Each structure stands twice: as structure tokens, then as C-alpha cells.
């Protein structure tokens, strides 16, 4: 049902600035909060070194488990007398780096395989599907448990392993969209114009499926943060003396009754961050999907 045709240059087009303001006003509070929070997290990730008051290993054995709210240690100290705030800032950086790195890896890997399946079909497609089946058949935590426990956890292995998380989702999306785009529509049109397959995939199909992939990334991103915390719980996440949100929660759980701030500070950051990403992701999905506008 075509209800409105919003195609015409209206006589008085408002300036970009006014449009910008309008856009901002239209953003619901929760989403605005999410965006602000994420921006803060990204800033922290970039400037953790400058922001944190102490080194992450700097310890004061006499000031162990001191309460939050005191001037030298705003968020208190942990079981070794290390500043929780400093560690939290570093943790945010590390967790974001892991989640970001892993999300990128899995998105690139999945999309590439998905495109390959769509382009070559046949054996390649079956291979990709079997790989996807394999990934789906081994729950990720179980697989990570097996790999990390047997090889020992290290940052590159952790990111690499996490990079496998959710790739099959991207592969399926990319494959499906690429096939339907090639079957009819813009991609076929460009092929028909004489474009090379590379141009078709990189210049046309990729930008078009990007929004779906980005939304999918907003789903995997918090899942990876949670997954890392689950691995940290099992002692297989980021390893000391390096710290991450999951690692802090994992080590802090023994202090839940005695010094809850050690665990709660990172737990709250995990929650609010994943919440923000989910909110922004949902909102983005609606924004990026023209049919929902």
C-alpha cells in the first residue's frame, strides 16, 4: 500500500543544521543515552592511559579492599590494593578491543565466505555450509573451553577464537542477500552493465548488505563481551596481570559479599554497554530499514 510518496523536493528544504537538530530530537532518550554511553566507552578505550589515575598493576598492599568513594580511590581498591577505577578503565579498553577485533574478524570472515558461497555456488557453497554447520554444532563456549584449556589462553588466541564467534551468521546473511541481489535487482543490473564480479561485490553488494551486517554486529558485540566474561569465569579469558571486564568480574566474584564493588563495577559496565549496544542496534535496524520508516 503506497500511502505517501515522499520523493519531491519540497519548496523550502530546511538547512542541514535544522535537519540535524530534528534528527537528534527524534532519537528516543534511551537510544541517546546508549549512544552517549558508547561514545564514552570508546573515548575511554582510546584514552585509558591518560584517564586512569594509577597503573593497573600498581598495588598498595596496605590499602586492600578499601571502600569506594574515598578520594584516592574513587571506586575503591581490589584484593591487592589496586585501584579499581584504573583497572576498570583498562578493562574497558581491553574488552572493547577484544570485542571489536573479534567482531571485525568474524564479520570479515563470514561475509567473505558468504559471498564466496553465493558467487561460486556448488562445491564452495557446500563447503561453507558444512563449516557453518560445524560451527553451529559446537556451542561456542564449549569449543573455546576445549581450545583455550588445551592451548592456554593468550590475547591473540582469544581474539582469534572469538573471531570465529558468529561468523556463520554473517555468512548466511551475506550469502542470502548476495544470491537474491544477483538473482534480480541492482546487482544483476550492474553485472549487465559489464562490471567485473569484484566491482559488483565490493562496490554494490557489500555496501547494501552492510546495514544488515552492522545490525548483526551489534548483536555479536555484546555476546562476545559476555562470552569473554564467561571464559574468564572458567579462568580462560584474559589472563592476569592484564585485565578485562570479564576477568574483573571473574576474579571479583569471590568478593561479592565482602567487597562487592570489585565485581559490580565491571558487571554494571558490561550490562550498560551491552544494553546500549542493543538499544542502539535495534534503533539502527529500524533506521536502516526503509520499510520500517
Amino acid at each position, binding site marked *: 500500500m503506497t500511502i505517501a510518496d515522499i520523493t519531491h*523536493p519540497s519548496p523550502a528544504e530546511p538547512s542541514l543544521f535544522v535537519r540535524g537538530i530534528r534528527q537528534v530530537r527524534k532519537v528516543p532518550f534511551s537510544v541517546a543515552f546508549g549512544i552517549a554511553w558508547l561514545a564514552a566507552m570508546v573515548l575511554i578505550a582510546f584514552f585509558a592511559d591518560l584517564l586512569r589515575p594509577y597503573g593497573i598493576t600498581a598495588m598498595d598492599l596496605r590499602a586492600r579492599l578499601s571502600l569506594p568513594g574515598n578520594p584516592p580511590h574513587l571506586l575503591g581498591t581490589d584484593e591487592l590494593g589496586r585501584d579499581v577505577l584504573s583497572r576498570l578503565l583498562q578493562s574497558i579498553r581491553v574488552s572493547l578491543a577484544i570485542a571489536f577485533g573479534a567482531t571485525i574478524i568474524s564479520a570479515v570472515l563470514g561475509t567473505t565466505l558468504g559471498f564466496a558461497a553465493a558467487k561460486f555456488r556448488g562445491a564452495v557453497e557446500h563447503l561453507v555450509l558444512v563449516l557453518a554447520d560445524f560451527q553451529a554444532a559446537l556451542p561456542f563456549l564449549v569449543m573455546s573451553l576445549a581450545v583455550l584449556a588445551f592451548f592456554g589462553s593468550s590475547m591473540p588466541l582469544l581474539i582469534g577464537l572469538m573471531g570465529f564467534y558468529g561468523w556463520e551468521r554473517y555468512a548466511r546473511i551475506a550469502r542470502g542477500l548476495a544470491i537474491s541481489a544477483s538473482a534480480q*535487482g*541492482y546487482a544483476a*543490473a550492474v553485472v549487465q*552493465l559489464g*562490471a567485473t564480479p569484484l566491482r559488483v561485490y565490493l562496490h554494490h553488494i557489500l*555496501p547494501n548488505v552492510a546495514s544488515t551486517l552492522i545490525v548483526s554486529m551489534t548483536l555479536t558485540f555484546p555476546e562476545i563481551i559476555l562470552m569473554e566474561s564467561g571464559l574468564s569465569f572458567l579462568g580462560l579469558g584474559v589472563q592476569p596481570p592484564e585485565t578485562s571486564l570479564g576477568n574483573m568480574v571473574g576474579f571479583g566474584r569471590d568478593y561479592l559479599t565482602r567487597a562487592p564493588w570489585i565485581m559490580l563495577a565491571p558487571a554494571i559496565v558490561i550490562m550498560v554497554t551491552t544494553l546500549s549496544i542493543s538499544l542502539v542496534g535495534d534503533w539502527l535496524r529500524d533506521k536502516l530499514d526503509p520499510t520500517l520508516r
Partner: protein
Amino acid sequence: MAGPILQAKDLVRTYEVRQGMFGRPSPVRAVDGISLTIMPGETLGIVGESGSGKSTLGRMLLGIDPAQAGEIAFDGQAMPKLGTPQWRALRAKMQLVYQDPLAALDRRLTISAQIAEPLAIHGLVPLEHRQTRVAELMSAVGLRPDQADRYPHELSGGQRQRAVIARALASRPKLLVCDEPVSALDVSIQAQVVNMLRDLQEENHIAMVFISHDLKVVRNIADRVAVMYLGRIVEEASSDVIFQSPLHPYTRALVSSVPVPGRPLKGRTILQGEPPNPANRPSGCAFHPRCPMATDICRTTAPPLRAISADRTAACHLVADSAEPVAA
């Protein structure tokens, strides 16, 4: 006068369809032995019901769907293999205009970027002149310069189709295949686009294949019309003649099913039944189950397409070798 821009001979295109849950794949002939000739600057209309294979034929003429049998020569040269560099290079010379312009346009690129794309792909116009050429093309199809930076969804259906046509014309093709280019448009816009296509074609001396189920539009734009039924051409003649005095019963049925404003439906022959499934091709003349005049021979023997008079062919047992229409 130069030779034909496109010559197709005995084109066949089959694809496999599995029927039912456990069916074996059976070949379905979407295009079944079609021969065509298109002269430079000429417009050939192709009409038929959905499933008649007219879109497949259009894509085969462009070499996008490879033919399993038969041959196509473009400008005297055999059609190169699909996907080869030669094939890609040839795209500059032949273009396709789609039914659904929104689907045919990349919604993430501006109109001007998309119109410039064939120029970039084929390296036709140096970068610094590209904008000028795009502007020319846009004005040629009646798009305003301020629309250059718009995205497809910001345009109306008619404007989008103009953009698609501008893109198709960018590489100065010699052949344009239009697959239902105006069926999705409102009447008023349809007229605008049809007029524009006619003008552009005349200006640039482009040969055109115009595929549509809308007889009125085809009549208006095409010089010659081929009527397709189930993968075959059943009648072909100049457009002035064919709708005035259709010979083949199918053409007649098509003509009479066109609703004309102010003319009541009563007294028209309405074709009964559905267009048959290409997978279950009837024996003999494929049209015979729906033909009001079918005789025994129609059920057993497929009528060949034969010349009825100069510039006129038909495939029907009941059409006499003269230009007289069959008795009603």
C-alpha cells in the same frame, strides 16, 4: 542500409524444474526455438502472458541468459561467452531497462553516481568530463540537475525509471531491451516515459526490444510486434497491422481482453483458463486447450511459424496463406 543489429536463430533455453516432493527434475523449455532479426533503430515489441518466456527471451538476446541452442549475432559478431571480458566489453553496446527501477538501482548510491557507472566500467569518458556527460544524460531523460545527488528512494517511480534509462543510455548503446519498463507506473507517468523513450530512440538511432504485456503501450511504441505463447512466437507483424487484424486466435484473444474506457465488456471473447505451465506443454499447438476454434489437427500437430504475407508470420493451422483473418 546496414545489416541487422541483432540476429537470433533458433534460440532455446531450458531449465530444470522439480515437481512435487519427490519429482525428478524435468527440463522446461522457457524459450523454444525463436528466431528474430532487429534492424538498427527499429523497435520490436514482444507481448504475451506471464510465463510465455518473453523476459527470458529478452535476457537471451542480451546474452545475459546463455542459450542452450541457437545462435545470436550482434552487429554481425557472435555473442561472446557469458562473463568473459569480451562479453563484459560488449555490454556498452547493449543495455537492459527493467520493470522495477527501484530494484535495479543501488539504493546506497546517488543517481548521478549510478548513471556514471557504465562510463567508469567501460572507461568511456575521462573522469573530468564525466559529470558533464551525466548532466547531459539527466537532462536528456528529463531529470533536473538538483536531483543528481538524490538516492533512488528519494525519487518517484517515474523519475527512477528515467534514471535507469539514463544509465542505460550512458554508454551510447546500439540496442536497448526494455522489459516491462512502464507497467509499474501510473498512467500519467507511463505516457511521459513512453514519449521520452520514443524521442531518445529516434535521436540516437537505437534499436529497441520492448517487452510488455500491455498491448496498448506496445502498439504505441513498437514498429513490429511478436506475440509469444509458451516459449514460441505465434504471430509477428507490424504493430499497425497486428492489433488491427490479429490472425492468430491467441493474438485475437489478447486484443479483445484489453479493457477500453467507455466500451463495455459484453460481446468480447475472453480467453478462458490459465496460461499453461511450461512444464506441462500441451501436445500439438500449445494453445489448443484454450483455443475456441481448436480442431483435431491442433491437438496433435504443432503448427510451424510461417509467412502469411510480406512482413507477417503466424503459427496456426487455421490461418490461411492469405492475409485474411480467420473466420470468427
